[in-house]
């Protein structure tokens, strides 16, 4: 399995378990505004996952969600050991996203021993100064994560305040040996021109870094299929399933009830919205936001349907920040590719087709200006 793919013969089914509503940090961009003291019991967790484990199917991914995952370690440890010690007919893998602040030496030993069954994904926002700015704590053993799960990317969240340190933060983590997944936070307030201008500068820094250091793994901002975008120009998309929310993926709350995802659950929503959300999701077609109609980048443009709902009351209503960020990333990628193709002595057929796509997309970018949405 390539490091950046998950084909259907590897991951067959995935569920989420909302282990705890609590967190020990208060990150600036967190969508959980009220941290209640709810947690899932061991018996509840077993009763939820056992029917899935009993199926005779491919790999089952069980994602621990929250809140901070490691605040539920007293349930997670016996749960993982219970799953490991039974003789199921399918393979399984636990995953937990964590802020990394609650790793004791004893827990590190346990995680190392069980690292094939449970993988932790660290959220760490680049430079230590950005980490402190966003999350208030940088006393984290990043190397433990890199040593234990070297293929797991570090989730690096970027917001308006930390954009100026974005490139340095990515380079800092890459040079530590990490794979990095930088992403712009989904928030209620939108970026302005200054923020996009700064983002452009950061992308330029990264273009220069990668041109001089091509041995480092690319971040997703520099992974694009320009041929796909050129194809989309001629064949506009109108319907598109953005994520598995409500269509295969489900998250189980502490009481055993299931929701489309952890954001569209009582973890974030009030009771009224939480009770109606499954119906809302199933009655909402996978339609593109009308304002995106005809955009060639729609097939990889980031969005979070849950964040669209909580901030704009509409699963399909996207934010302007990511629209503009996507535009800049594609321009940066084109710039990077132009430099690569100019240097290449002999072009391949794929290079030639990419050049055809570049020509169309440069023209498109020049004639399409992106509005400042609400």
């Amino acid at each position: 399995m390539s490091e950046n793919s998950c084909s259907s013969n590897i991951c067959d089914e995935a569920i989420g378990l909302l282990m705890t509503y609590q967190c020990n940090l208060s990150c600036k961009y967190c969508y959980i505004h009220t941290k209640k003291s709810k947690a899932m019991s061991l018996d509840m967790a077993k009763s939820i996952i056992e029917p899935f484990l009993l199926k005779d199917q491919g790999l089952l991914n069980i994602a621990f969600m929250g809140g901070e995952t490691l605040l539920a370690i007293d349930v997670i440890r016996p749960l993982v050991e219970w799953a490991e010690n039974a003789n199921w007919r399918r393979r399984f893998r636990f995953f937990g996203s964590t802020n990394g602040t609650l790793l004791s030496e004893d827990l590190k030993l346990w995680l190392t021993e069980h690292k094939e069954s449970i993988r932790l994904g660290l959220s760490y926002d680049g430079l230590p100064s950005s980490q402190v700015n966003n999350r208030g704590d940088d006393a984290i053993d990043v190397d433990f994560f890199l040593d234990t799960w070297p293929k797991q990317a570090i989730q690096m969240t970027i917001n308006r305040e930390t954009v100026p340190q974005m490139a340095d933060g990515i380079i800092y983590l890459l040079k530590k040996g990490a794979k990095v997944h930088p992403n712009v936070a989904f928030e209620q307030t939108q970026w302005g021109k200054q923020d996009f201008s700064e983002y452009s500068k950061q992308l330029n820094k990264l273009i220069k870094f990668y041109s001089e250091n091509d041995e480092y793994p690319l971040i997703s901002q520099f992974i694009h299929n320009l041929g796909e975008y050129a194809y989309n120009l001629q064949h506009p998309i109108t319907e598109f399933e953005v994520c598995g929310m409500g269509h295969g993926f489900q998250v189980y709350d502490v009481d055993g009830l299931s929701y489309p995802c952890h954001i569209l659950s009582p973890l974030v929503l009030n009771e009224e919205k939480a009770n109606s959300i499954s119906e809302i999701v199933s009655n909402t077609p996978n339609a593109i936001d009308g304002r995106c109609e005809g955009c060639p980048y729609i097939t990889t443009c980031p969005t979070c349907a849950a964040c669209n709902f909580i901030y704009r009351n509409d699963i399909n209503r996207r934010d302007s920040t990511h629209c503009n960020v996507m535009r800049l990333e594609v321009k940066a990628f084109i710039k990077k590719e132009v430099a690569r193709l100019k240097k290449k002595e002999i072009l391949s057929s794929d290079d030639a087709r990419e050049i055809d796509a570049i020509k169309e997309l440069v023209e498109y970018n020049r004639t399409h200006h992106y509005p400042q949405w609400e």
Partner: protein
Amino acid sequence: MSNGVFKFIKDIFIDDDDDDDDDDLETSDEDVDSLTLKAEDIERDEDNGQISFKGLNKKVCATRHGCQGATDCDYAYGDY
């Protein structure tokens, strides 16, 4: 005042590039034209006219909260 002097003053004191804050990511026509010329005689492999959404370059799920690819959505997905 000559046109040259007027332009000189305008360039210094008047910022009329408000719409081009990201100029430094632009690809020039010269670059596009030179690459087009460079690729002119190269035969393009036949394609079937449809690019799979899942493409060659799978991107990490941008929702960043993802299901680790198990639900096989239209989005290009990847490791959590």
